């Protein structure tokens, strides 16, 4: 979102982004039944994905194989319902495909895969796509391209050694066309990140590894816009956008709860949650929560 935009245009754009985000949340919610999905991690990165696809990434449904497109890699993988929803809202895939979530003959399942148009690579095993994104970023640099590579990682994923190994090498290779977006929702599978293997001070960790760090409220489009604008500078260093987010954002009845990670709700609960999403009354959830990990 260019800061040069007038306030009026800005306001209109933000409204429009918010409306896309709401539609994406509806999609995510509708995937949290009939087998369920990782709803907590999906809802925390909705604004990040909507902002990137609508305002930042140079990519579109008719440029899926264009070597000059920007690349987005979803490294944590659990959040793929939010990506499915975003791709459906922006015309990369049919909305009807999402109704086939988890069908045995559908490619829309719990983790991303390349058979879904718009998804660049499969993930699910944590700590992999940083290095894959680095390979793509390096090739773009070798070929003199101007396109950029974004990789969304979870904060829990930062437990993986391969993340830190990759960051060291990304700095060494001066990959300033690489933007690592941290969905800092404060949770890993079963608990708060700081209660298990504390990550803080995280900014200092990244900076000491040679990266530039930009903080943002991960649910505020204007703030995300400012952070991504700053991450454009071509500083010679890889960039990190640290987006502070809320697990389960948008549904107060499940927000910031360790036991609302993977959820498989009843149809009735989905109806209540949809109402809650549209600022209605708070849902009453009685479903047992299935923690897959």
């Amino acid at each position, binding site marked *: 979102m260019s800061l040069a935009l007038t306030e009026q245009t800005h306001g209109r754009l933000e409204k429009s982004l918010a409306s896309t985000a709401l539609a994406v949340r509806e999609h995510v919610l509708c995937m949290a039944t009939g087998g369920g999905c990782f709803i907590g991690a999906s809802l925390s990165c909705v604004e990040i994905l909507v902002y990137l696809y609508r305002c930042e990434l140079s990519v579109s449904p008719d440029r899926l194989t264009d070597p000059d497109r920007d690349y987005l890699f979803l490294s944590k993988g659990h959040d793929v319902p939010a990506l499915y929803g975003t791709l459906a809202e922006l015309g990369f895939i049919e909305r009807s495909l999402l109704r086939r979530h988890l069908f045995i003959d559908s490619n829309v399942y719990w983790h991303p895969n390349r058979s879904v148009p718009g998804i660049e690579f499969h993930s699910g095993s944590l700590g992999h796509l940083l*290095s*894959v994104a*680095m390979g793509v970023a*390096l*090739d*773009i640099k070798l070929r003199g391209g101007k396109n950029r590579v974004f990789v969304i990682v979870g904060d829990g994923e930062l437990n993986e050694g391969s993340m830190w190994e990759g960051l060291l*090498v990304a700095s060494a290779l001066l990959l300033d066309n690489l933007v690592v977006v941290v969905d800092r929702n404060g949770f890993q599978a079963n608990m708060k990140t700081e209660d298990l293997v504390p990550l803080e001070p995280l900014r200092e960790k990244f900076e000491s590894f040679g990266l530039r760090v930009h903080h943002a409220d991960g649910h505020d489009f204007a703030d995300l816009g400012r952070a991504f604008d700053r991450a454009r500078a071509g500083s010679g260093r890889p960039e990190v956008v640290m987006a502070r987010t809320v697990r389960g954002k948008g549904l107060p009845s499940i927000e910031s709860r360790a036991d609302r990670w993977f959820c498989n709700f009843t149809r009735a609960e989905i109806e209540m949650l949809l109402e809650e999403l549209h600022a209605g009354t708070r849902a009453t959830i009685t479903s047992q929560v299935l923690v897959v990990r």
Partner: protein
Amino acid sequence: MTYQDTLISLGLQDENLVVLTAENRAAVRSVPEALGERFIDVGICEQTMIGMAAGLALRGRRPVAHALAAFLTMRAFEFIRTDVGIARLPVKLVGGVPGFLSEANGPTHQAIEDIALMRTIPNMQIVCPADEEELAHALPSILAAPGPCYVRHTAAKAIIEHTPFEFGVAETVSDGDDVAILTYGPLLAEAVRALDILQSKGISVRLLNMRSLRPVDEAAIAAAATAAEVVVTLEDHFVTGGLYTIVAETLVQRGIRAQVVPIGLDARWFRPGLLADVLRHEGFTGERIADRVLDVLERRKIALKTSS
């Protein structure tokens, strides 16, 4: 031609070829000068190297990734399986000092389960050249193939002139029908010494250089087991999961009955030492291989007499 000369020459012809290493430069010392930015040393980061190789391949590159075989196939195993294997990307993996070639390094460096691991990955080709000449000859085919490939690197000098390399085709070094010896890698040299000894004793030996373990020459395995009384698999690898297993699977599937005797490492690491000493200590010299084959044939003769 050496491995690296061939790699450089192929790299100069194909701008998509990129050479990676996790700071193992022994086999590619001259590549940085020749290929410039297309030589990428990521430091001691095998996992990152494989992830990056996958990313480079997504962009149309042909990455050739180097690391010591033990760390390449084990430290980075899940990256190979998940990023390269699932996506069937044309990443070529070259493992340094595999098998006995780790010499005195000790068990940490002994890649003697690399083939077992790599052959669990769908579409992974496996090439184990006997010497550097065969490696160099095989390289164009390895790089041209559309999927991933694991290569056991060797700098051994050739002691025989090889027939042209082809995936899935074993090289017949000697034809015979008393015993068949199937092997791969630098142990071929010891097998050739064993062949001379056995032939001097009037034994008819079929010696096959298996070299392409995936795809493997199933017809050659079946023909060897049908023609010879005994099949011996000779390898610097655990008996589990290597050539012995490949031969056993092939014969069982085809319903061919044969005695298959493994000369390999039976659920143990080998005694670290200089290569010649390792071969002697572990019983893998030409003389010891010949003795072991004679022993098998002798016992078989006694068994047959007793039963008749």
